[in-house]
């Protein structure tokens, strides 16, 4: 009976989204429904986590079809952990968005689609984490992508339409590739169930296996923004409203990383492509962070560090041993919380100052000390300053790399260390420009004039939430500029996330032993396969 709980994280947000549409006229009702729904998802995820840890993977075979034909939802340790962290982060971002909603468009928000779409996004993320077969994984991806299309173009301003177009075209391409991959997998094996595939994949000729693996990896690498396929991310994320960027940055790329981990460990355990993945990880880390160093807008700096740090997780996956996987899973948990927190803090900076361009900011450490601390702690965490969780995650990955002891693994370790230093450099630059150095009024920064003067302040001007386009002239958001006090309803959820990301240091011991158990479970493969296929398992 308790197994049926696995269905809740997918069904409840979808039902909640429907209810939100019914109560589309009342912002209060929508908020209440959204909070209750996400709280129940967090609770369910916590129960699943405990159960998966003590009794092995929790599975449901929907409608009672045989496991290799029908739809399965599986919550093993990895899925349950991802689900819990993502649900918690989604809840915090939702609470944050309330504050922004109240402040920016009065009590009745004109965007009645925001809450339903946000809940659908949450359902899609849950479905992707719990999917026990490739096609259901595809459906999960599509649910979250479809709602992300709506969220990224929210308000329909010119800049968001432009950024959204790029995002949507890239996502459509990856979806088409995923479908091709699924059709090929089905043609080769006659099933799309992950557990059934784990047994049948090994019987295929090596060339076919490699073709399937490359197809799946390309798809997931687009979604996870791994280097040669990462250019879309910094281009499209910064324009969206702060809560939307935060939840995208925290969750969407991690769903891609999760899919890579799942397929690599379950379907291709003795993969010949691990060296290729290591190369991709090295290039993602280094090139991503070099991009971050060149930027002057905080949102764009963070988008590039996001790409760069995907490389760390890929590094752990490419090592393909329990040590590397332990580090990778720990790093995902750390990175989801920290990256989301940073984007929310930047949302607060934008709210307060009206811009996120470091060349126009200054002296925030003096004028907004609380905000400065809320930026500083997660920024140092991301860079990996001991004793914060970023340091522990990087240490685990580097230990895995050294344990692997191949020249390429050492190269990846070197790249990881260099990337950490450069992350520190990029974030210290933001810190000293925007927070530390006093703002010099008379100083005109020479900047080549962009073609369109309306977009002069880049990500900042069109980054405002939701004001409908035809009225979006500079004066409509100028009144928010230099608002001295931060609204508590935005600051408190951010503070909660800052505390949660810092608390990962304190709980690192239990969390590490959990990720270690999870990595061992994935490496063995049998617990997952047996939980799904039952007695049919070979």
């Amino acid at each position, binding site marked *: 009976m308790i197994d049926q709980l696995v269905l809740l994280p997918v069904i409840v947000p979808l039902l909640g989204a429907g209810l939100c549409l019914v109560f589309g006229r009342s912002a209060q009702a929508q908020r209440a429904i959204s909070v209750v729904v996400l709280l129940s998802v967090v609770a369910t995820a916590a129960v699943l986590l405990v159960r998966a840890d003590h009794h092995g993977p929790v599975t449901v075979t929907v409608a009672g079809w045989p496991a290799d034909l029908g739809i399965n939802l599986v919550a093993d340790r990895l899925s349950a952990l991802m689900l819990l962290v993502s649900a918690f982060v989604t809840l915090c971002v939702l609470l944050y968005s309330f504050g922004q909603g109240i402040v920016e468009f009065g009590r009745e928000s004109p965007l009645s689609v925001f809450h339903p779409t946000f809940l659908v996004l949450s359902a899609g993320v849950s479905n992707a984490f719990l999917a026990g077969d490739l096609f259901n994984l595809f459906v999960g991806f599509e649910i979250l992508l479809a709602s992300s299309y709506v969220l990224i173009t929210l308000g329909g301003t010119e800049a968001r*339409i432009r950024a959204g177009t790029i995002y949507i075209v890239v996502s459509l391409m990856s979806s088409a590739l995923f479908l*091709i991959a699924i*059709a090929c997998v*089905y*043609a080769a094996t006659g099933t799309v169930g992950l557990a059934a595939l784990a047994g049948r994949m090994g019987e295929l000729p090596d060339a076919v296996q490699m073709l399937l693996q490359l197809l799946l990896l390309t798809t997931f690498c687009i979604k996870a923004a791994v280097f040669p396929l990462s250019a879309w991310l910094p281009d499209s994320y910064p324009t969206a409203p702060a809560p939307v960027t935060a939840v995208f940055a925290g969750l969407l790329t991690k769903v891609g990383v999760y899919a890579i981990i799942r397929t690599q460990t379950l379907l291709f355990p003795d993969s010949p492509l691990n060296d290729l993945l290591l190369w991709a990880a090295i290039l993602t880390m280094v090139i991503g962070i070099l991009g971050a160093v060149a*930027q002057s*807008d905080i949102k764009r700096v963070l988008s590039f560090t996001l790409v760069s740090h995907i490389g760390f997780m890929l590094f752990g996956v490419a090592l393909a041993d329990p040590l590397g996987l332990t580090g990778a899973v720990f790093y995902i948990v750390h990175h989801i919380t920290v990256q989301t927190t940073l984007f929310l803090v930047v949302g607060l900076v934008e709210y307060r100052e009206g811009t996120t361009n470091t060349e126009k900011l200054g002296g925030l450490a003096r004028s907004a000390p609380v905000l400065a601390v809320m930026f500083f702690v997660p920024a140092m965490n991301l860079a990996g300053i001991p004793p914060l969780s970023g340091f522990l995650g990087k240490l685990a990955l580097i230990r895995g790399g050294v344990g692997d002891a191949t020249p390429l693994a050492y190269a990846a370790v070197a790249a990881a260390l260099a990337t950490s230093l450069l992350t520190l450099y990029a974030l210290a630059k933001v810190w000293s*420009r925007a927070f530390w150095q006093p703002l010099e009024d008379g100083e005109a920064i020479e900047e*080549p004039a962009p073609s369109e003067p309306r977009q002069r302040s880049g*990500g900042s001007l069109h980054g405002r939430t939701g004001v409908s386009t035809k009225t979006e002239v500079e004066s409509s958001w100028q009144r928010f500029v230099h608002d001295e006090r931060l609204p508590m309803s935005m600051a408190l959820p951010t503070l909660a996330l800052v505390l949660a990301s810092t608390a990962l240091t304190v709980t690192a011991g239990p969390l590490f032993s959990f990720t270690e158990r999870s990595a061992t479970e994935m490496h063995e493969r049998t617990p997952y396969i047996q939980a799904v296929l039952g007695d049919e398992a070979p």
Partner: protein
Amino acid sequence: MTVNLSLVVVIAVLVACGVTLVLERSLTRVLVGFVLIGNGVNLLFLVSSGDAGRAPIVGLGDGPMSDPLPQAMALTAIVITLGTTAFGLALAYRAWQLTGHDDVQDDVEDDLIRRRAELDSTSATFDESDEALPDEEGSDLDEEAAR
């Protein structure tokens, strides 16, 4: 399992035309490209289901049934393609409303940084005393040559 060659040729043509259209700048053409690719992929599911047979309904007749599972998947994919195409068309319409065309533009911020690199301008915190040293790309030499 024998593969129907004409089906494969049709898939190849559809996907090739689709990819050509996706490489265009106009969003409407890109969308038409994705519709073509989507149709090609749906046909690919028919190929992957193996030999064609009678309709997969139990008790309707004798003889081998065709595999229903890829059909179910193709159906799901068709619905998803329909939804995303509708959204994409709305997006193209909105872009046309705002700018008079639906071409995908380059990123303004990217362009700024690229131009800053071309100008070789320095940031506010740049140490002036280092400026006498020639930089690594040798752009100073070009300036001297220009003089």
